[in-house]
């Protein structure tokens, strides 16, 4: 079955359309123009308890991070990249943050109340720490050593005692799923309410998962050049205002000059 966007909206008014794929005629929401390069976007989970919903490592070692929080100018795209780089021990330039694409990114409530760093970042950090733990375990098993004997630099795991024993994250997991569950918490406090996650399960560190302390962070807390500025000053930043879909029309609210006004058929729009 093939439907245009417009037909879909029209049909949806009086019938239920079920069991469709978005890959034929209808474009998925491409909030930041970042997802077009992904081959099969819908194959990726978005439920909060799956590590794969939040983070993936490609065969080239590039790390994709998926967040429901969006950057409207505060610089969190850069900040999220910094914290993933630190928590996972990968180069900052290898981290790509995908934001606010409902087909790809888990629901994280609202990007409001200055909570992107304080609340929105937590699941990402937990996911990165969990991914690192899984990867170290894989490397330890492969080398026949304990995890305590391993170091990670720029996405490469090395056994301290045997320098020849080293393996990259890309070799360990590149292009494949982690298939790991993350512990969840449900918050009901005021801060959670303000940022729209009240009552919503969100990842938290399981008892055995240690997040890095301030002394172990290289980039978090440092002021580094923002990743979004070059595109913004050259007119190539993909603002939502630039999104064009087939047969797109624009609507606007026309407010009457007086209350209780009625629309009359003789009235014409300019």
């Amino acid at each position: 079955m093939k439907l245009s966007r417009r037909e879909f909206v029209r049909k949806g008014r009086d019938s239920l359309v079920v069991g469709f794929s978005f890959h034929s005629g209808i474009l998925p929401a491409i909030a930041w123009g970042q997802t077009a390069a992904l081959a099969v976007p819908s194959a990726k989970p978005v439920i909060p308890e799956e590590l794969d919903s939040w983070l993936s490592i490609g065969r080239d070692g590039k790390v994709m991070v998926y967040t429901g929080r969006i950057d409207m100018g505060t610089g969190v795209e850069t900040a999220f990249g910094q914290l993933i780089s630190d928590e996972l021990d990968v180069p900052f330039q290898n981290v790509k943050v995908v934001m606010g694409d409902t087909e790809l990114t888990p629901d994280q409530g609202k990007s409001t109340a200055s909570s992107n760093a304080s609340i929105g970042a937590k699941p990402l950090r937990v996911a990165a720490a969990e991914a690192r733990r899984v990867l170290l375990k894989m490397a330890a098993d492969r080398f026949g050593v304990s995890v305590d004997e391993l170091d990670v630099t720029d996405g490469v795991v090395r056994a301290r005692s045997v320098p020849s024993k080293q393996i990259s994250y890309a070799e360990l997991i590149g292009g494949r799923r982690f298939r790991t569950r993350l512990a969840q918490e449900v918050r009901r406090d005021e801060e959670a309410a303000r940022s729209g996650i009240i009552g919503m399960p969100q990842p938290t560190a399981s008892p055995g998962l240690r997040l890095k302390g301030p002394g172990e962070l290289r980039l978090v807390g440092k002021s580094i050049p923002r990743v979004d500025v070059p595109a913004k000053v050259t007119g190539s930043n993909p603002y939502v205002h630039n999104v064009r879909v087939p047969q797109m029309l624009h609507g606007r609210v026309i407010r009457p000059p007086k209350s209780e006004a009625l629309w009359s058929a003789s009235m014409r729009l300019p």
Partner: protein
Amino acid sequence: MKTQLRVNGRTAMVDVDPATPLLYVLRNDLRLDGPKFGCGLGQCGACTIIASGKPIRSCITPVSAVRDKEILTLEGLGTRQQPHPIQQAFINEQAAQCGYCVSGVILTAKAFLDQNPNPTDEQIRRALAGVLCRCGTHLEIIRAVKRAAEHRATV
């Protein structure tokens, strides 16, 4: 009506009502996303482009008024790979947050620096008073314009 325009050094033909705001033609017909729709009333400056050297508000300028002008948008200045010195100055000073205003800010600054290559801070402030930034990037913007002026002096 068929209208010929000169935009970013190229000739473009569009078929629009002569009263159509230039901004709509740039964004919708020519797919130039640099200029932005802000207030639609010529008051915020987000739509500012340069027409034959002068910064103008493209949201309230009918396309018929610029037929004989050389139009410059942010895209015509430089690219991500090869930014114009003013764009580079904005990158160096990190003078953008949401960046929605920055096209109008940069083009206003370009037209201003072309006329005033050696401005004081006060002159920069006055020149940019009509392009509004709601994020609060004002100090970085002033530093960026100053840096661009200094760069110009050294080349």
